């Protein structure tokens, strides 16, 4: 499922004041719930198959939409992120010529250092704070990051 399609679904939900949408197709399951803080999405990808694209949003079976009301966020997500706790410059490795702290597919636990964020000449080691596997590196090496910015996508165990 492409990001643009997810955005389109969220847009439709906003426009029609829907609070919940879920869909299943070819092993791809997506559920989007609108809570008091905004939208949360749960995407379950099939283990090996590449992301599937939808033929048309209208062709997919959808569950009956519920009227909008405050809903608590979904209980367990298995896509999590390591987000930046500060403003600074993101570095993947402890030094320019050193190997990166983590790579895609690498297992991490809460104490694993995944990157450095340099702020005001201080190198801050950032820990994963979650147990799982790094699925994507979202920030660019040596580029600035802001508070709350997603650094890594993690598939939680």
């Amino acid at each position, binding site marked *: 499922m492409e990001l643009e399609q997810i955005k389109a679904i969220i847009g439709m939900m906003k426009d029609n004041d829907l609070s919940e949408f879920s869909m299943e197709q070819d092993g791809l399951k997506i559920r989007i719930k609108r809570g008091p803080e905004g939208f949360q999405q749960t995407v379950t990808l099939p283990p090996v198959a590449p992301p599937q694209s939808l033929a048309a949003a209208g062709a997919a079976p959808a569950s009956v939409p519920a009227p909008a009301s405050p809903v608590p966020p979904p209980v367990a997500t298995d896509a999590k992120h390591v987000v930046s706790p*500060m*403003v*600074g*410059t993101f570095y993947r490795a402890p030094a320019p010529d050193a190997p990166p702290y983590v790579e895609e597919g690498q297992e991490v636990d809460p104490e694993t250092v995944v990157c450095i964020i340099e*702020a*005001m000449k201080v190198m801050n080691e950032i820990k994963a704070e979650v147990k799982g596997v790094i699925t994507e590196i979202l920030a660019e090496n040596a580029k*600035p990051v*802001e*508070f*709350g*910015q997603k650094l890594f996508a993690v598939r939680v165990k």
Partner: protein
Amino acid sequence: MFDKILIANRGEIAVRVIRACRELSIRTLAVYSKVDADSLHVQLADEAICIGDAPSQESYLKIDRIISAAEVGDVEAIHPGYGFLSENAHFAEVCENCNIKFIGPPSSAIRAMGDKVAARETMRKAGVPVVPGSDGPVDNEQDALKIARKIGYPVIVKAAGGGGGRGMRVAHNDPSLVKGYHTARSEAERAFSNSVVYIEKYLESPRHIEFQILADRKGKTLHLGERDCSLQRRHQKLLEESPSPALTNDIRKKMGKAAIKAAEAVRYVNAGTIEFLVDATGEFYFIEMNTRIQVEHPVTEEVTGIDIVKEQIRIAAGEELGYDQKDIQFQKHAVECRINAEDPFNNFQPCPGRIEFLHVPGGHGVRVDTHVYGGYVIPPHYDSMIAKLICYGTDRRVALDRMARALDELIIRGIKTTIPLHKLTLKDPNFRRGRYSTNFIDRLLAASQPLVPPKPQESAPVPVATTE
């Protein structure tokens, strides 16, 4: 001149600073909390960096993140706006140490005027009249009683680390002084981490008149006239105008000279405001100095034609003021109404929420400074001021008629605002005659209330962070 500036603030003042920067061809970097991602200042700035969660202590007050953002954004200067870190001497020092220009006075001046007890002493030494009061901090109940009896009731207990109307208690007699003394101290401890208090004579229904100062790095200090800010509620200003209908030219000249003397006494640089209280006989007394740009600066801008924010940036960049006191013209009469997201008929309860519909007035002599737009959601975490409506004209009558007209055109739907209160004020014959003082709003509200006893569980609302 600077190439790029970081604006360490939000809301309408951040928009104001960004506008001045754009006109000076300076690139802008906005910082914002997560809940301000859709805010106008973020949209107008060239770049924006998220610095934290919604609460001010997690974002706009986080010095380390703001400096980090300044470094990451490669800016040369930081404009602190008003409120937040604008009068934080430590923040100004950190900027100085990091080689980033703080657009405001030197940290020494912020410190000198930030300690209200020390400021009084400095003013007294400089020959600026101060409100009769304690010579320094009042350390115990016995001293408080002695001083109060010497000055004569009523008196007001004030926090040395406070200001802007916070941390104050009025007392009319010994028992209420004892109570007020202890309450003020514990409040001050909680709010400012500083329980030092002092005592002043409490002037009944004075006029609150402040003078705008501009000073450059070469030491040239000018005043841009006064603003009458007597229309207040619980020490929060609601409406400001210039010139003050209460001053004669003679008193104005004397106060202007005193304001300059006050600023020079702390070697002030950049924009600042000297606040005075004026009693019924025309005697004026220094109460405090605000070492930053003020909310009501547009009033002075429309009277004098001087862009105060641009002057702040120019002064910080090392430029000298290109004019003298005699060159400053006071051409117009200007009035500003602060539009707050509050219900004036329900104890000014804050009303954050979504603005369903917005229509701002226009036409000759009308200025609107705001960060809100139709569809904008006002977050509950910050102060409730959402817009400033400024009207000006050739004289007071024109300016007030214009303000009444503009208030009728101003539509903000979806939340409650103080617009109805301003309309009532503009209709009041005493206000129209220029006859009002700091108790005016309370009296106006009392007169307009229906005769219904208050609900037993009603309590005063806690204002979300107040700036001035």
